[in-house]
């Protein structure tokens, strides 16, 4: 297993070219949350030529809809949701400079192609570890689509947020490679 690497967002071209699928990363800096309904709106904005609630170049989107924060806490439980639902919306965001996404589960062939084409990475965070991951989120602020409740876009400040590089810019896919490595033939 690889050593832990520390990386700070936003991600530069050099940051992403140094990442390989299987790398264990501790991310620090800003992440933006967006999931199903927010993605729909983001892509509608792009189609209409309207400005987005945040600038995409170099940024990382975290697919999560946190549970409400208790008083005095930055956020509630905040693990990754399943990523494939965001697949249709992802290539246009990557085309405009988004450098990373964080979620759970494998991506579509179209997203994998777009990751190579636009030189961006997909990170896996541990699905179902929302309590643990919430401890690495130090600030949270709703910046758009408050009416969507848990699906609003939040600007998070994270410190040493643990992820694994699932898809790198070279076309490697840890979901495929991991499964092949441990597949067993039964007689």
């Amino acid at each position, binding site marked *: 297993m690889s050593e832990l690497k520390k990386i700070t967002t936003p991600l530069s071209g050099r940051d992403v070219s140094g990442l390989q699928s299987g790398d264990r990363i501790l991310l620090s800096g800003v992440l933006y949350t967006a999931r199903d309904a927010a993605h729909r709106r983001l892509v509608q904005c792009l189609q209409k030529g309207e400005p987005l609630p945040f600038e995409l170049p170099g940024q990382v989107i975290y697919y999560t809809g946190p549970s409400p924060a208790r008083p005095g806490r930055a956020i509630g*439980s905040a*693990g990754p949701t399943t990523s494939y639902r965001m697949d249709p919306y992802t290539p246009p965001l990557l085309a405009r400079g988004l450098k990373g996404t964080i979620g759970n589960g*494998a991506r579509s062939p179209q997203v994998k192609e777009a990751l190579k084409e636009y030189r961006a990475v997909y990170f896996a965070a541990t699905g179902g570890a929302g309590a643990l991951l919430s401890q690495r989120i130090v600030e949270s602020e709703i910046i758009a689509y408050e009416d969507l*409740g848990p699906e609003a876009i939040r600007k998070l400040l994270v410190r040493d947020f643990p992820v694994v590089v699932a898809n790198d810019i070279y076309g490697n896919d840890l979901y495929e490679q*991991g499964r092949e490595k441990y597949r067993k033939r*039964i007689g």
Partner: protein
Amino acid sequence: MRQLSTELITAEVARLCIEANYSLGEDVLQALRKATKQEESPLGREILQQLLENAEIARREKIPICQDTGFADIFLEIGQELRIVGGDLTEAITEGVRRGYNEGYLRESIVSDPLCRVNTGDNTPAVIHTEIVPGDRLKVSVLPKGAGSENMSGLAMLRPADGVEGIKRFILDWVEKAGGNPCPPLIVGVGLGGTAEKTLYLAKKSLLRSLGSPHPDSKISQLEGELLEEINATGIGPLGLGGRITALAVHIESYACHIASLPVAVNLQCHAARHKEAVL
């Protein structure tokens, strides 16, 4: 006739919603601990350790195990000699869910209409299943079901000629196709027999069993064991990133079958296998 007030039912449903979301059952924790010893993938082992640590933090800090605190799936076994007094039973349960999700800082994940998709703001309505049973008690089971795993549910109306092999093939293909999406390691809930909706219900209801408790019918428990071995040979592993532990258990529930049918349903449960029960 024994009487039970809807007020008490509301309070219990609220408590069960909160408890289920904060504290993983000892059966699940034990299975995860065992899995960390069996897993060959170093990354898989690390993920399993994170899940155990996560469960500990959730219980200690009173924070949901997973941010998807689910659709409140509620199973009632109503004793036929029990009289429920004080109001409408469905409303009592709805109020319990509303109160539990609000007081417990649980996420509101329900939209009122699949097309308009406006959040109801209190995680209601619930999905309520009722069975009438002998006796004068009410058993309430609350199973908050996250969408990540629920979205990976499936049904096949097989031909009787497809037999056990057909059943196994469908379940294995289904788990393979779902991959890391439903947050493995899984409990694979399976319904066999009945009608289309009955077998889907059985698959879901099997998730209420204590994790890994074998089916009393030996031919079914044997099939559970065989399926578990084959699922764990797929290599999918913890969260789909490769490994030996793709499922912690396979639970099958079966029912009588039409001469022309062999229905089989799969309901996958993520590792955050949350459910709590009370007998009132």
